[in-house]
């Protein structure tokens, strides 16, 4: 999956399911859009669906420090590369 496709999928998911809009790639999701830990866990489940694999506990804990969409896309690309 190309980076641009991942990015579009993630932004669409957040906007559709979390009712957030005008999400910038480097916006702090919590500070700017009210994204919280409940949303983060829900997004992790979506990432697993996207990757068709389950994330490890270490990956999940690392993901909880993510703040921006750009970081989310970086995270997914790395997790996919690790599994390639």
């Amino acid at each position, binding site marked *: 999956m190309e980076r641009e496709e991942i990015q579009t999928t993630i932004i669409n998911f957040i906007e559709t399911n*979390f009712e957030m809009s005008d999400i910038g790639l480097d916006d702090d999701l919590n500070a700017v859009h*009210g994204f*919280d*830990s*409940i*949303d983060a*866990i*829900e997004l992790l*489940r979506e990432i*697993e669906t996207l990757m068709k694999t389950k994330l490890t506990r270490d990956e999940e804990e690392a993901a909880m420090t993510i703040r921006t969409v750009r970081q989310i896309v970086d995270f997914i690309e790395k997790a996919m590369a690790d599994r390639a």
Partner: protein
Amino acid sequence: MERRVVITGCSAITPIGCCKADILKNLESGTSGVGRIRDDELLVEQLNTSVFGTVDQDVAYDFPRKYRKTMGPVSFAACRVVDDVIEQSGLDRAVLSSGRTGVAFGSSHGSTSVLKKVYQACFNAQSTEMFSLSAADYLKSMVHTTAVNITRMFGITGRVICSPSACTTSSQSIGFGYELIKFGVQDAMICGGSEEYDTTTVAVFDNLLACSTHYNDTPHKTPRPFDAERDGLVVGEGAGAVMLEEFESARKRGAPILGEVIGFSTNNNGGNLIMPDLAGVTQVLEMGLDSAQITADRIDFISAHATATRIGDVIEARAINNVYGNTPWVSGLKSYMGHTIAACGVIETILTLYMMEKGFIVPTLNLDQVDDRCAMIRHTPRLMETNIDYAAVQNFAFGGINTSLILKRFCG
């Protein structure tokens, strides 16, 4: 120091209406909110009863997602009625978030529809469904979900009391809220209860042979509290909230004062968890009057628990007679909508406040022939135009818990 406690807002979602005008119209016309139970694709076909007190009206739950995401249906209804009472009372955000305003609210369970989803995931052996449980599912299904979703949505920072005690959930909520204000611990309390549509509750009562089954084809004819032909209770759904406030601050703010809570009692039968107990019920009614510091002859109207079970109504009638004789008018308001379990105490309190304001008392619906064993009290025979200065709202629960709330018409 004991302080006066007044009611400055009330709102209910009930099977006979979701606003004051509809509820009053249906009370006055004697219209039942009991209908056919809705199919749940789980239990309904196995039940003996086919009736339920249903909320058929669309209710607007247009809350922002940041609040909705931790709510199941039970909390949607709770937050809807609480939103209403905050607006009615005029309490501003600063007061709600001052630490002097609290919440006493409950439900029988957390959201039962969300709990079903959790159980389905747990019992699916092949499952990857376990991972489909969202982080919010626990927040929706935990037993104090209504109380804390209220605090979150309205920024309330004071005490939280959650009293999931089945049929006395919301009467205890009001009573405990009343005591916190009366004794100076809090200045305002949002109190009430909510009950989500749930067929597992129906199944429990059905298995205990406590549900009405003879009127499946004529739902509006049941329940029939105190009637010779009653055959059990009808479970219902609904929610209600009242805003309780310390009198002086409410008066200074110019808040609408709908009534006054002047007494509360609660006790336990100390034994059987299912069967009603004459001594326990009699005692709680006496304790309610003691708390209010009035004599029994001052009570004009009793909102009886009156679920229409064969034994429960008889015990309640005897207890009323023991304490009040046959002077006050007695009505069983569940006859209009079924038994809304965790919400019944607050809904019956609100209906009593409405009648107090309008100056009438409605009769028990479907009470065509009083059971001889329930005949020693003064049943309201028809819609009576009469003032209610003092009223008692009584509720009794599985687990042997009993409550009595004493209300007074506000006279300044």
